[in-house]
């Protein structure tokens, strides 16, 4: 089940990139993810601008995916190494993704600002969690801008916190997502 869910965003992306889809589908033109963990002893933060994703307005479906190894901007190379090897195990779980459906009905053809919630599966560290994520959406000239902030509980995704660094890692990670989407 987990494995299936794990590959779902890839399928969706693959599907979307094939021809024959609705011309109204949107693709991320530029997107970034940053996260920060305000642990008592050490602030860990990093960002990546390699966010990929799709929104299919007709089906109210979407998928976003990020290569975990593309996160940069750690305090030290050692921190990055720990992030990839100890916590995220990015060799084993190279991507993080969120795919699902938009709860609200919004008209993507109409310019405006919307607050939208989406219900989907958040896959981090190979563990899928169903989540509702709220985001702000601005639609202008058939371009979509999305901002979202949400938290990830490390325990939800089986991300181990070694006792020694317990103080270094907050049990909650704050994630900021920014994406610009345009019709493919």
């Amino acid at each position: 089940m987990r494995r299936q869910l794990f590959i779902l965003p890839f399928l969706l992306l693959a599907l979307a990139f094939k021809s024959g889809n609705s011309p109204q589908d949107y693709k991320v033109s530029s997107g970034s993810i940053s996260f920060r963990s305000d642990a008592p002893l050490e602030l860990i933060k990093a960002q990546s601008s390699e966010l990929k994703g799709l929104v299919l307005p007709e089906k109210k479906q979407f998928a976003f995916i990020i290569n975990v190894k593309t996160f940069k901007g750690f305090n030290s190379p050692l921190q990055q190494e720990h992030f990839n090897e100890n916590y995220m195990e990015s060799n084993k779980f190279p991507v993080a993704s969120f795919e699902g459906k938009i709860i609200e009905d919004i008209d993507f053809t109409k310019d405006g600002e919307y607050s939208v919630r989406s219900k989907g599966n958040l896959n981090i560290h190979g563990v899928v969690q169903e989540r509702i994520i709220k985001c702000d959406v601005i639609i202008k000239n058939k371009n979509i801008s999305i901002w979202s902030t949400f938290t990830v509980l490390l325990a939800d995704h089986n991300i181990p916190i070694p006792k020694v660094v317990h103080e270094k890692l907050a049990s909650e990670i704050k994630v900021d997502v920014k994406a610009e989407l345009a019709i493919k």
Partner: protein
Amino acid sequence: MLLIKKIPLVLLLITGINCAAQFAGSRSFKLLDDNRPFKINTLFKTREGYIYAGTTNGLYSFDGKNFKLINTNTPAIKDTVTAVFEDNRSQIWVGYKSGRLAKKTKSLLQYFEPEEGTPKVAITAFLQDKQNNIWFATNGEGIYYFYNSHLYLINEEEGLSDKYVHALALAANGDVLAATDQGINICSINGANKKIDVLGPKNGLPDYYITAIQPAGNNSFLIGLQEKGFCFYNHSNKQITIPAAAGNWNYGQVNALLYTQNNVWIATEANGLMKLPDAATAAAADFITSTNKNNINNLLQDNEGNIWMTTTSELISTAGDKLNLLPIYDKAVYETIHTILSDYQNNIWAGTDGGIIKYTRSANQWTSRLYPIKGLTSFTDITGLYQDMYHNIWLSTMGEGIFVVDPVTGKYRNISENPLLKKASILSITGTGNTVCAGGLEGVATIFQLSELNVTINANYTFTNYDSIPNVGNNYIHTVFKDSKGRIWFGTDGKGITVLEKGRFKHFDKTNGLKDEHVYSFTEDKKGCIWFNTKDAGVYCYNDTVFKNFGAAQGISDLKITTIKTDRLGNLIIVNENGIDILDPVTGTIAYINNNQGITGVNTAIESVCTDIAGNILLSTENGILVYTPSAKNILRPKTIIDNIQLFLKEIDPVTDHHFKYDENSFTFNFTGLYYTNPEQVHYQYKLEGLDTSWVSTKDQSIPFPNLRPGKYVFHVRSSLNDNFNNADEVTYTFVIETPFWKRIWFIILSILIVGGLLYWYMKSREKHLNKMQLLHQEKVEFQFQVLRNQVNPHFLFNSFNTLISTIEDNPKAAVDYVEQLSEFFRNIVNYRDKDVISLGEELQLMNTYFYLQQKRYGNSLVLKIDISDQLKKDCFVPPLTLQLLVENAIKHNAVSKESILSIHLYTETDSRLLISNNINPKISPEKGTGMGLQNIINRYNILSENSVLVNTENGHFTVSLPILKK
């Protein structure tokens, strides 16, 4: 009566009676603002008992009299409340039409938004599951639940049959049942794993559209349907049961359901509120309905058993299960009822002017049967009815004695075997077991002992007549009563009580404390105490030793008491013209059911009240026969609640705030005695322990205590329906106002110690200073004396004059200088005499003058060398004549001649000491000195400086080292 004669005795008159009936005690409340009513969307009762109304204008609390708006933290947002809930930590949750969520903190609603956001559609219901997670249903987005600090959504993706969810209910196994437009959805959640089963028409549900789900005991639920009425769903065996009554539903949509002790209550769109007793088996005909209002919503039972509902613009309450007006309405008959009886089959017998009538219920249809009795006319008063252990009916009459009737055949006979009863006027007929008791005019009192022979009415009865009871004579006997201990009680009209116990009569009257000797009826409570009511003095309780009176002071509402009965729960039912008082014999608490609950015009005939086999009380009233159903839900006292506590009009948290600073001292307590049955009747007593010593009675619900002094306080408040507060519900709030720190004992002691210490130090230092001053003064005087003595000593003058003489001869001009110097010297001595210190410069000048005078004498044999900076001369001070004296000493104690030159050297050492040193030229005959001069210098320096004077004789030098004094 003519007719009756002509037809056989067994002729029965049977009539069907109209079943229309109203619910007893309907009261209606409107929530108005500027005369515009708000719609109440939802009703909710907290565990404490408060009713909340969610309206188009926000959330209101309702205390039975007034609606009070609960403010929100953002008053600008006007939102419609669509759901209210209290979780098991007493946290109130509110859901809005906009999808907003709020929680109540103290008296304020705080909007909050989870990270996941809030729905965009109305919140319809809340629920707390077995893991204490909070769920809420929406009208269009499905069901949300909080789990592990995230919010999860159940919608069609998980298999929810419809996103429009109207109600939620929790099953015994932890499943959540959701009422949707498309059947019942059974949600089994394990963490984030969701499993949804849909229960629809293919499972036997009569309707797709589910409007309501209400728990109905034993994991069974009442299901409200849009078109097909209602049904039962049992979650244990997944069975759906459609009651016969709902078989052919044509009363419109069911908006709400309620399952109470005795009934199923159904709020309908088209047929008002409907009540169905024995819902599982009842037929449609059994519905009791109130048809004057439609579109009933939101059923709720308060803690006193009242049923509440809403219409479009009103909140309505009814007496609920506790009062039922039997739907047998025959006004002509009711007006002539003297006595009623509920028999062992729950048939109701009425003794009327027209004879005795039996009312029998089958389904919801009541039929009546008249039992004609020859010899009774419409002028014959039937005073009492009694059913004996063989089910035969006894009736007592005025002037015609006692008849006994076989209820099956209708056959009857007059009890003629007892001559005392012939044409007698009997006032009451009671009994227990095999005993039947009758009492009447002229002291008639008869006890019948039934035997097996008396199964039929034909056999003669065995009886004992008590026609010559001592102290009673030919007075009326209102009632005869046999108690559980076998004693027989006779209540008389004016002669008190006589009791027959083990063959002996005992009499009780004024001398035993009875204020009234007219005794109307007896009853016995569960503890075996005998209760009776009197004509004017209320009721009495006799516990085999004393008579305890309950009158107006104890809370009896009306002293004109008709009769007294014991109900199923053991409470005393005291009947008066306007209703009943319910007295708890254990606590003495009295509650009232009267006009406010729908009782009016109670028949005042003593025997017009009876108890049925279930222990319910039947009253004959102007509106028909009313049944009072005792229930543990019918609480007899108001629930006291401290609504909020304010400190300087700002609300505090009564759970956490108990300690206040000395200036936080003005409190206001707002409280409510919740009693929805009759809120106007609630009285309060309060006491602020620490300030008041006794209880203060009030009707106010807000009591301010301004400017309280520091101390420990306990606020007590209790509420009661009458002036009897003995068993009143009491709540307390303990708080402490701290003593300001300057009034605390440690501070006072510390202050005293510090002040004392300072004073001590001051005095000590002053004393020291004074001593020093005195010493200085003394030294100074001694020194002056010494100096003067030295200078006016004849040697000095003699030597000076000799020098002068020799100079005058050689050099008169120099002599003039000499004299000038000499006078300068003496003038300076006089000038500096009174000073403690003078500058070093001044002293050096003085010393130079002296030296000049001496040098004239010794010439070059005397050398003075001064190595002192000009700066030091200005900054440095010495006691006057110190250096002079030391130079003088040097000259005095040493030989001065050309062979032995005396060289005096004055210099400083590291700016802190002034040294005066001379070489030692011992004299052949040493000068005898007092040593006082040097000692005096040492003493003075000891007072003026911390450093002392050092004197030493080394390497042939005599050196005095003085500490340098600086200002």
